[in-house]
C-alpha cells in the first residue's frame, strides 16, 4: 500500500512539474494573444532556442546559471526580433496570415538550428547542486531538480501575477487587452509595449526550454509538441487569462502524467497484460484531448475565458 502511495505522490509531483513547464509556455502565448490578438505558432521555436542556447553555453562555460541567463537572453532577443521584423505587420491581418507567417518562421528557425547545430541532439546536464534525490515529508523520494523546477515555476507565476496586477506595465497590458486604440490615444507607446510583452513571453518560453532541456534531449522540433499542448491548455483555461493558463497547465500536466501510468494499470484489472498495456497507453495518449473536448462541451470559452 505504501508502495502505491509513494508512486502516486511521485507521479502527482511529476504531473505538477510538467504542468508548471507548460504554464511557462502557455502564459506567454496567452499574453500575446490577449494583448496583440496574434496567434504565434513560432512560440515553440523560442522554447527550442532557449534549450539550444542553454546547452551550448553550458557546454562552453560549464555553468548552469550562466546557461539559464543565456537562454533567457537568446529567447527574448529572438522574440523581440521576430516581433519587430515580421509579426507587427500581422496584427491587423486575419488569423490565416498569422498562421502561415508563423509557420514559415518555424521552418526558418528549425532548419536554421539544424544547419548550425546539426541533426544530433545536444545534452544539457543537471547542475551538480540540484542532482540526486531528496526525501520529502512522508518518506517520499523525489528528484531535487524536478522539485526545483516546480519551485522556479511557482516563483515565475507569482512574479507574473505581481507584474500584471501591481506594475505600470501590467496596467498597460490589461488596458491593452480591453481596448488597444484607447491606450494608444492616451499616449502609451503601443509598439514598444507590444515588443516588451512579446519579449517577455519569449523569455518565459526560453526559460522553459532550458529547464526542460536538462531532463530531455535538446533537439530540433522539441518545441512544437509542447506548443500544441500549450494550445490545449489555453483552450481549457480560456484565452487571455493567466489564471486560466495556470489552472489549465496543472490539469493537463496531471492528466497526461497520471493517465500514462494509471490507465494501463486500470485496464490490467480486466484484460490480459499486453492488451491492457496497449489499450491503456493508447487511451492515455488521448486523455488530455478528451479533457479538452469535455471542457469544450461544458464551457466553450474555457474555464476562465470571457463568456461571449
Amino acid at each position, binding site marked *: 500500500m505504501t508502495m502505491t502511495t509513494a508512486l502516486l505522490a511521485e507521479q502527482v509531483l511529476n504531473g505538477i512539474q510538467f504542468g508548471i513547464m507548460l504554464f511557462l509556455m502557455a502564459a506567454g502565448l496567452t499574453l500575446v494573444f490577449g494583448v496583440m490578438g496574434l496567434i504565434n505558432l513560432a512560440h515553440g521555436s523560442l522554447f527550442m532556442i532557449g534549450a539550444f542556447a542553454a546547452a551550448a553555453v553550458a557546454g562552453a562555460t560549464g555553468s548552469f546559471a550562466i546557461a539559464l541567463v543565456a537562454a533567457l537572453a537568446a529567447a527574448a532577443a529572438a522574440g523581440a526580433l521576430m516581433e519587430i521584423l515580421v509579426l507587427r505587420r500581422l496584427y491587423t491581418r486575419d488569423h490565416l496570415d498569422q498562421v502561415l507567417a508563423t509557420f514559415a518562421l518555424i521552418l526558418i528557425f528549425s532548419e536554421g538550428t539544424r544547419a548550425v547545430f546539426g541533426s544530433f541532439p545536444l545534452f544539457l546536464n543537471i547542475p551538480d547542486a540540484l542532482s540526486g534525490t531528496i526525501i520529502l515529508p512522508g518518506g517520499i523520494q523525489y528528484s531535487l531538480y524536478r522539485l526545483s523546477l516546480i519551485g522556479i515555476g511557482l516563483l515565475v507565476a507569482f512574479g507574473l501575477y505581481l507584474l500584471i496586477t501591481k506594475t505600470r506595465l501590467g496596467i498597460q497590458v490589461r488596458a491593452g487587452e480591453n481596448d488597444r486604440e484607447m491606450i494608444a490615444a492616451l499616449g502609451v507607446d503601443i509598439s514598444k509595449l507590444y515588443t516588451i510583452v512579446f519579449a517577455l513571453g519569449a523569455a518565459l518560453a526560453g526559460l522553459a526550454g532550458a529547464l526542460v532541456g536538462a531532463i530531455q534531449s535538446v533537439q530540433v522540433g522539441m518545441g512544437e509538441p509542447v506548443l500544441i499542448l500549450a*494550445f490545449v491548455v489555453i483552450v481549457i483555461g480560456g484565452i487571455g487569462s493567466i489564471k486560466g493558463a495556470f489552472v489549465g497547465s496543472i490539469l493537463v500536466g496531471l492528466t497526461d502524467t497520471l493517465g500514462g501510468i494509471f490507465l494501463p494499470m486500470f485496464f490490467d484489472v480486466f484484460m490480459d497484460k499486453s492488451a491492457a498495456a496497449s489499450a491503456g497507453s493508447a487511451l492515455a495518449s488521448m486523455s488530455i484531448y478528451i479533457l479538452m473536448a469535455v471542457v469544450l462541451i461544458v464551457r466553450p470559452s474555457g474555464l476562465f475565458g470571457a463568456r461571449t
Partner: protein
Amino acid sequence: MKRESLINLILLGLLVGFPVWAMFSDEPFFITLATKAAILAIAGVGLNLVIGQGGLVSFGHASFFGLGGYSMGILASHAQTYEPLVLGPLVIDGSQSMPIIWLVAMGVSAVAALLIGALSLRTSGVYFIMITLAFGQMFYYFTISWSAYGGEDGLSIYVRNTFPGLNTLDPIQFFMIVFVLLLLVLGFCARLRGSSFGLALNAARQSSERVKTVGIEPFRIQLAAFVLSGMITGLAGALFADLNRFVSPSMFSWQISGEIMVFVIMGGVARLCGPVVGAMLFIVLEHVLGGLSEFWHIYLGFLLLLIVLFARGGIVGLLAGREKAHE
C-alpha cells in the same frame, strides 16, 4: 472570371502533360512526382473548401489525411494476411480494391470530421485553429502508441492496391486514376460554389448574423462543409498511402496540416485551382531546392513569409487579378 478559367485549364494541362512527357522520355520518377502533386492537390482542394469558402482556418487536416491513409493501410494489411478485421461482433474482410478503400477512407474521415467539427465549431477564430491542431496531434500520438498496426514504425503494404481494368503498378495508369479523381473533386467543388449551399457557406463566412436572420443555421452549414472537406482530404490520404505503399503516424503530424495549408495559401485562398498550383509549386520547390540544399525548408520559409507579407491572393491571384465581387 474568364481569365481565371483559362489559367485553370493551362494548369491542369501542365499537370497532365508533364507525366505524359515523362512517360515518353522514360522518366518514371517524374510521373511519381506529378502523382504526388495531384494527390496533395486533392488534399488542398478539400482544405480550401473550409478555409476559402467557409473562412474556417483548420490546422488539423492531417487528421483526415492520416485517417484516409490508415484506412488504406488497415484494409490492405488484412487482405495481405487473409485475416479478417474483427470489431466486436463485426467481422470485416480486408480489401485491396481501390474503390472500396476510397469509400471506407471517406466514410471514416466523415465520421471523424463530424465529431471534430461538432466540437471545434462551438468556438471560432483562434480557438478553432488551436482545437483542430490539437485533435490532429491526438491522432498522431494515438497511432504511435497503438501497436496493432505498426505503432511508431508504420505499416508497409507490399503491392499497390488494384483498380478494375487497370494496372495500378504502371506509374502513368496510377497517375491517371489520381488525375481523374482530382478532376471529379474540382468539378464537385465548382458546382458546390454555385449551389445554394455554397452561397450560404460564403455568406456564413462574411456575416453569420445575417445568415441567421434569413433562417439558416451557420453551424449546420459549416459542419456540413467541414465533413465534405474532411472526406476529400481523407481520399487524398488513401491515395498518398497507396503511392508510397506505406502509412505511418507522420501522416498525422502537424507539419502535414501546415503543408496542406501552404498549398492552399501559396496557390490562392478560395480560388478553385489554387491548391492545384500550390501543390505543383510545392513539389517543384521540394525537388529543385531540395537538390540544392539539405536545408531547403529555410528557403521555403522565406518564400512563404514574402507571400504572406507582399503577395496576398497567392499565385492565382497574381496571374488572374483580384477576384470580382460578383462572379
